Structures are given as structure tokens and as C-alpha cells.
């Protein structure tokens, strides 16, 4: 018997496969059918691997039929942001410069999901090289928000967030450098988790800003996200910045309740510029946490006003270096004709990169130049420490911080794309946690009058994933926001 996958939780679907209530193949057909009906308008997928996912589902079903042991996510159809390299499956990072790239290896995170039994429906749309907050920077096509097709899903993991919101996948993976998991999770009304830096391996994740890139999961429920994180977290010898400690018990934490926890409310995250409906919903969520047994503690993160500038300085500098490898020689796009090696590089890169990577390469190089280095990049590294120190000080007074995720709900496609600076400024609540490396989660905490989701962000200390899962799980257990679904628009 095939279940209705619309609104279904990944954990429940996995349990049904394990109990032989339904087959993995039934789930795959149900999701493929939804993708065929709905994704033409949403644009979540860059590639749907119909044959591969059917083969994988049949293999899981066969194992279960003969009683062989399978992983905790066996047979569950998931999707991967197209920044995770997948062996034998085209991987583009949303860029024309990687069009046609067939990786000869697999990212650790996607490999671990497969080892846990999850099967991949395909590759999800994103801002080019994860640079953007609206998914409008995809070199292929934009993603539309399932709650309102005229609006953005957020970015850069817009396809991953929208695919979970529209029930095109049971869960997905994304990456977060300055908010690229949490902001789209907020704008699409799903759960998105950016774990501690180094908690999930970056091996096989196409690099944007290496000291800030964090892979992480999207789920319909807090427990779904916890189950995905348990599968992908843990030490990886292939990533020298991977944290050696074993992964935590996130699912358990999501059901542990929050009695006795101190929830810090940073005053800098509740200032002018916030949409009044967002502020009202987040303040109501704080009241709910207090009713659930948490103590609210006013705290301060005094360097918040410098976080966006610091973040963009560092990420552009790192991006300018990471993107040097795309030169038309070893993989990806190569210009049709060039008389010299120098011309080959310059034309290939000029043709292959979109506007946002070009801006960041130029500006990143500018701030690293001799004469400017100390004034810009060196300064940013020092302010980064001040921002991280703010979090350390705050966590001496509380266990978790609760804030809005995005100052506004989803905005209209085209509304901000003409002005890159305006787009950057909207990242105000999400850029500081990656600078400090601390974990953070976004979940739905209400809707605007016009029906757009609003996000609540929980931030924990380094390796404090359990604490944010406790808060998020307890909040979800007391509210119904996560049960609301966008209409199917075919």
C-alpha cells in the first residue's frame, strides 16, 4: 500500500518501509509523480535520476524481503543540493562553468546518507556556487516558493527547502555559508539545520568559502532533520577540518523537552527593520518556549552590526581563491577558441561564471591585494573573533539563543535582484553563527496574514546541537505550524 507522501515525515516513511507497510518503490513512484506534476512550476530539480532511484528502491525492497539488515533511512527518497558531488551523476553547483561535469567520486555526506539506506531522487537547484539569498542566481532557472509562486524560496539552498515544503522529497541536504540553509528553511516553512563547523564533512562539497561552508539537512519535522543529521555527522578523515568527536543523539534530544533550559534573547536581533508580522510571530514563539518551561534571559551580542560586513569580506576573499580552479582545462566549460593559455583561462571564466561569482571574485581579490589586505581582510578576521567572543559570553548566561531567522518573509522574484547590497543586508540574522562556527536551526513559527511562513532560529554553543534540537522539538510539539502545507499548484 502506498502512503500519501504529501506532508509525510521522513521518519514515518522509513518506519513504514522497515515494517513492510509499504515498499520503497511505492514511495519513489509517489514522489516521482509529484515531481512530474508540480516541479514544472516550482523548478526545484536540476536533475531527476528516475532510473537510478528506482533501481536503488528495488534493491532496498529486495533486502527487506529477504530479511537482510538495512540502515535507519532505508528506502526513503531524498534530494541533494547540486553542490554535493555524486559519482556518475552530473553536478553543476548551479553554474554553467560546471555544466556536464560527471564527478568520479562521491561526497562524504551523500555517501553516508546512501549508507544509511536513503535513496536519491536527484539534484536540487541552487544559487550559483551557493552565492545568493533568493535562488535567482541559479545559472539554469529560478526556484519558486511553494507558498506563493511569485516569490523566492530563499537561497542559496532554495531547491532543497522548496522540495521539502512541496513534498517532492522526504528530506534534503543543503549547505549554509551565511544562512543558505536557515534562510530558505524560514521562507519555505520547513526545518533547516546548520550544524557546528566541522560536524559534517565538507569532502565532496564544492567549495565556496571553506572556513564558513557547513553542510546540513532539511526536514519537514525537527525529528526528520535530526535523523538526517545523525546519518551524515561525524568524523571524516577526508576533511582535515572535520571534528573528531562522534555524532550526538539528535532524535532523542528532539523529544527530551526543554524544562530548565535558559533561552537567551539577544536584543540586537529585535531592532528596527524587522517586518512587524515577523516580530510578532517570533515574540509569540518566545512566550511559548517560556510556557514550555524555559527561562528567557535577555542577552547582548554587541558586534552584530559588523557581522554582515565581516561575513562578506571573508567569504568573498575565500571565494576568489576557491574559484580559481575553474579554468577550462580539467573539467567543465571551455571556451570554443583561444589562441593562448591565458586567453583560454580568461574567456572560459568570462563565459562560464554568472554575475554574482564574478562580483565576488573581483571584490575578494581586491580585499586581498597587497596594500589593502590588512585594512580589509585582516580587519575582518579580527572582527570575526569579536563576533565569536560575543557568542561565548552569551552562552555563559544561557543554553540556547532564540531569534528570528529572516527579517522579512519571502519577497517577490525580481524585487531585490537589481541591488546586490540590499540582498546582502537581508542576511542580518544568519551570518553571525557561521562566523562563530556555532550550530543553528530554523523552524516555522507562524504565517503572515497573506500566508507566508515565518522562521524561528535557535542557536547553540559549539557542538551544542542537542540543545537546539531540544528547544526546536519542544516548540514543535506544542504548535501546529509544521502541519500546514502549501496547496499543490500543477
Amino acid at each position, binding site marked *: 500500500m502506498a502512503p500519501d507522501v504529501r506532508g509525510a515525515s521522513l521518519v514515518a516513511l522509513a518506519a513504514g518501509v522497515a515494517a513492510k507497510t509499504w515498499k520503497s518503490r511505492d514511495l519513489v513512484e509517489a514522489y516521482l509523480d509529484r515531481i512530474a506534476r508540480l516541479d514544472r512550476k516550482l523548478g526545484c530539480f536540476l536533475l531527476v535520476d528516475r532510473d537510478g532511484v528506482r533501481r536503488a528502491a528495488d534493491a532496498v525492497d529486495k533486502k527487506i524481503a529477504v530479511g537482510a539488515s538495512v540502515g535507519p533511512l532505508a528506502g526513503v527518497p531524498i534530494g541533494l543540493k547540486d553542490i554535493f558531488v555524486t559519482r556518475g551523476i552530473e553536478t553543476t553547483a548551479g553554474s554553467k562553468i560546471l555544466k556536464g561535469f*560527471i564527478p568520479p567520486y562521491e561526497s562524504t555526506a551523500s555517501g553516508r546518507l546512501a549508507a544509511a539506506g536513503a535513496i536519491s531522487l536527484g539534484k536540487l537547484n541552487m544559487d550559483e556556487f551557493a552565492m545568493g539569498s533568493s535562488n535567482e542566481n541559479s545559472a539554469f532557472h529560478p526556484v519558486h516558493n511553494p507558498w506563493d509562486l511569485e516569490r523566492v524560496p530563499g537561497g542559496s539552498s532554495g531547491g532543497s527547502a522548496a522540495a521539502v515544503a512541496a513534498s517532492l522529497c522526504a528530506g534534503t541536504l543543503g549547505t549554509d555559508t551565511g544562512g543558505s540553509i536557515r534562510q530558505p528553511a524560514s521562507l519555505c516553512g520547513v526545518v533547516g539545520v546548520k550544524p557546528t563547523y566541522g560536524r559534517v564533512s565538507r569532502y565532496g562539497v564544492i567549495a565556496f568559502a571553506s572556513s564558513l561552508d557547513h553542510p546540513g539537512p532539511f526536514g519537514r519535522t525537527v525529528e526528520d532533520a535530526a535523523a538526517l543529521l545523525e546519518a551524515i555527522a561525524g568524523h571524516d578523515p577526508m576533511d582535515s577540518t572535520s571534528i573528531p568527536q562522534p555524532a550526538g543523539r539528535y532524535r532523542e534530544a528532539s523529544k527530551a523537552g526543554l524544562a530548565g533550559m535558559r533561552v537567551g534573547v539577544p536584543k540586537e536581533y529585535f531592532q528596527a527593520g524587522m517586518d512587524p508580522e515577523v516580530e510578532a510571530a517570533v515574540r509569540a514563539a518566545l512566550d511559548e518556549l517560556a510556557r514550555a518551561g524555559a527561562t528567557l534571559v535577555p542577552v547582548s551580542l554587541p558586534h552584530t552590526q559588523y557581522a554582515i560586513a565581516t561575513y562578506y569580506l571573508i567569504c568573498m576573499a575565500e571565494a576568489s581563491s576557491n574559484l580559481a580552479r575553474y579554468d577550462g582545462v580539467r573539467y567543465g566549460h571551455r571556451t570554443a577558441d583561444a589562441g593562448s593559455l591565458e586567453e583560454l583561462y580568461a574567456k572560459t571564466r568570462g563565459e562560464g561564471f554568472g554575475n554574482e561569482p564574478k562580483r565576488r571574485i573581483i571584490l575578494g581579490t581586491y580585499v586581498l591585494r597587497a596594500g589593502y589586505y590588512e*585594512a580589509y581582510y585582516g580587519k575582518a578576521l579580527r572582527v570575526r573573533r569579536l563576533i565569536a567572543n560575543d557568542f561565548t559570553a552569551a552562552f555563559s548566561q544561557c543554553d540556547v539563543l532564540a531569534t528570528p531567522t529572516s527579517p522579512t518573509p519571502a519577497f517577490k522574484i525580481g524585487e531585490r535582484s537589481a541591488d546586490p547590497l540590499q540582498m546582502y543586508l537581508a542576511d542580518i540574522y544568519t551570518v553571525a553563527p557561521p562566523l562563530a562556527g556555532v550550530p543553528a536551526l530554523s523552524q516555522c513559527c507562524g504565517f503572515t496574514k497573506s500566508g507566508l511562513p515565518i522562521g524561528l532560529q535557535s542557536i547553540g554553543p559549539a557542538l551544542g546541537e542537542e540543545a537546539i534540537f531540544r528547544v526546536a522539538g519542544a516548540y514543535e510539539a506544542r504548535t501546529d505550524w509544521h502541519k500546514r502545507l502549501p496547496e499543490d499548484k500543477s
Partner: protein
Amino acid sequence: MPRINSEEVREIAALVRLRLDETEVERMTHELDGILGYIETVKNLSTDEILPMTHAVPFDCPMRPDEPGQSLTVDEALQNAPRRREGSFEVPRIVPGTPGTPGTGGA
């Protein structure tokens, strides 16, 4: 006074091997000037006693034995190359030679 001019943008674009057309140079100069104006706010902050932070989470870099491991085969490494020849990536000639000999010519 603008913080960055179109001449600097052209110069950096040449350094990073990125061909931009004149429309792109003009648009980018204007955009980058605005962005630099904003990010300069960090300059107002005193950080004299603060050490730069290059890594978010401090921990000891783990060591492993220095032993050869599995790596890509030559074929795997070359499978995505736009042009390849005799087990190598092929690029336009970078040293002077006779035109028409192997390795000559465009992309």
C-alpha cells in the same frame, strides 16, 4: 570620491583571468563601490589587541600515517577534461614551436 574605479576593476579582472566586457566593467565598478562603502564600516572598530580568527572551531589537526592510499586512475582524472591527449590535459601551446605540430592550436 569613489573607492574603486573601472581601471582597477579591469586590472583585477586581468589578474584573476576573468574576461569582462565594458558593460560588465561599468556595472561592476558601480556595484562594488557601493558594497565597499558598506563593508568599510568594520574599519571604525578598534581591534588592536585582537588576534585574527582563521578557524571557527579550535581543535588539534589529526595526524594519519603517511601511506599511499587509493586515488583516481588516469582515465577517471581525465574523464571530464574538455580536451585530452596521451594521458594528459591538453592546452594551447605555451612555449614557442613550429605551427602544426602536436600541442599547437586553440582550445
